[in-house]
């Protein structure tokens, strides 16, 4: 019991260690997995994030008018596991530090992120295709030559045809 008395007196003497959160800022560790963030420019629409998400919070679908791919994220079922951030090849999806997840009931069914990427026209056969992403190119080639740049503007079939002709 004597131990408790010492602790109680020590607590009493130095000021309380309560974190003033609602009335002041609080400390958040930097790799805290809060609500996920999505940068469309980096996204290549590869669906890995939807595939790895255990609770199905992310949904990547073809836009109705076929003009691109829609990425929608529903916070209320995301378990902040960080799989999406980990498996995304181009880090388009990553976990931010934002922990403010309290929402009113009326906002329950509004998707937290409702974004998407649009298709790009192939310069050769004018067909819609996903546009290449710089990050991916950087990873594939040491240095990006004019040649590589030109190929990125072709759709996969045209690129295959061009490669075939070159052989």
């Amino acid at each position: 019991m004597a131990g408790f008395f010492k602790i109680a007196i020590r607590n009493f003497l130095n000021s309380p260690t309560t974190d003033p959160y609602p009335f002041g800022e609080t400390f958040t560790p930097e790799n805290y997995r809060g609500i996920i963030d999505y940068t469309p420019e980096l996204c290549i629409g590869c669906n890995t994030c939807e595939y790895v998400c255990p609770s199905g919070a992310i949904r990547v679908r073809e836009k109705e008018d076929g003009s691109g791919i829609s990425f929608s994220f529903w916070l209320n079922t995301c378990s902040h596991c960080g799989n999406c951030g980990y498996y995304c090849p181009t880090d388009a999806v990553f976990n931010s530090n934002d922990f403010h997840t309290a929402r009113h009931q009326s906002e329950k069914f509004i998707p937290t992120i409702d974004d998407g990427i649009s298709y790009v026209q192939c310069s050769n056969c004018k067909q819609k295709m996903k546009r290449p992403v710089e990050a991916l190119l950087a990873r594939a080639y040491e240095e990006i030559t004019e040649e590589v740049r030109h190929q990125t503007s072709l759709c996969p079939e045209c690129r295959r045809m061009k490669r075939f002709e070159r052989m």
Partner: protein
Amino acid sequence: MITLSASSVFAYLLFPGGLFAVLFGLLLLSMGRIAVARFQGRVGPPIYQNIFDIIKLRVKEVLIPEDVTNKLMFCIAPVFGFVGMMTAIFILPVSGVYGGTGASSDLIVLIYLLALPAVSHILGGSASGSTYAAISVSREVILMFAYEISFIIVLFTVALAAGGGDGAQFSLKGIVDYQITHGSFISDIKMIPAFLAFVIFMLATLEVPPFHIAENDGDVMKGYLMEYSGMPLALFEITHALKLLVLITVLQVFFMPGIAGASIIVNLLWFIGKSAAVVACIAFIHASMPSFRVDQAFKFLMIVPILLSLMSLGMILFF
């Protein structure tokens, strides 16, 4: 016949009686909560917290358990405790501020009035028909059975000591005047064990953690208050606050009724200061002590406070 003079009605309803006592009791309770929080290193609620608890309960809906055996008893139970405590405050003299009613401000009346809150808990708990309440009623009565002995012995010790050797002095006013002239009992070595026994009794009656058994959140959750909500619960909270104030006043009447100055204001501040000190000590024990189980508390209460009070009774009688 009864002398319902204006001063006694004023004393009952406003100054040391109703409004002042309820507000001061609630402030003392929330001060206790703040002190406990500070001992645990957290900030604790604002000072007016318990007052707003009462106001919030006024707004709530009142729920009556449907298989309550006696709806009338269920609603009347809180009133017993409240009434007992209001009368107790009315008859208790505050040294230098309020002289007590003189006519029936008597030790034996005090014993039975102090038992009324426990009776109201018991009636409320068993009338509500809930099993948890019944178990906590049985615990409450076992505790009452145990701590009442030491309270009685302490009471008789004080009565005898205040009697100054020729029989016992039962009127509270007499005890206060005796101590003012002969020096308060807290300074008298013979009365220290009785003081300790009385403090243990206070902790046990107020259900402060070493004896937080009848309403223990661990197993019986809210105990006898389980089925109460809304205004009856507010009455119970007010009774608890009044009981804290009554016990502190009784402690001061018995052991330290010293007067600080001549004017009422100075004495009142001195009274408030002493009460705050007592609440701080109670909070200190609250913050640093776990609760007993029922049988441990029963064994403890049957041995330690009784021996302490018998010791000081013996010392008073034979020296």
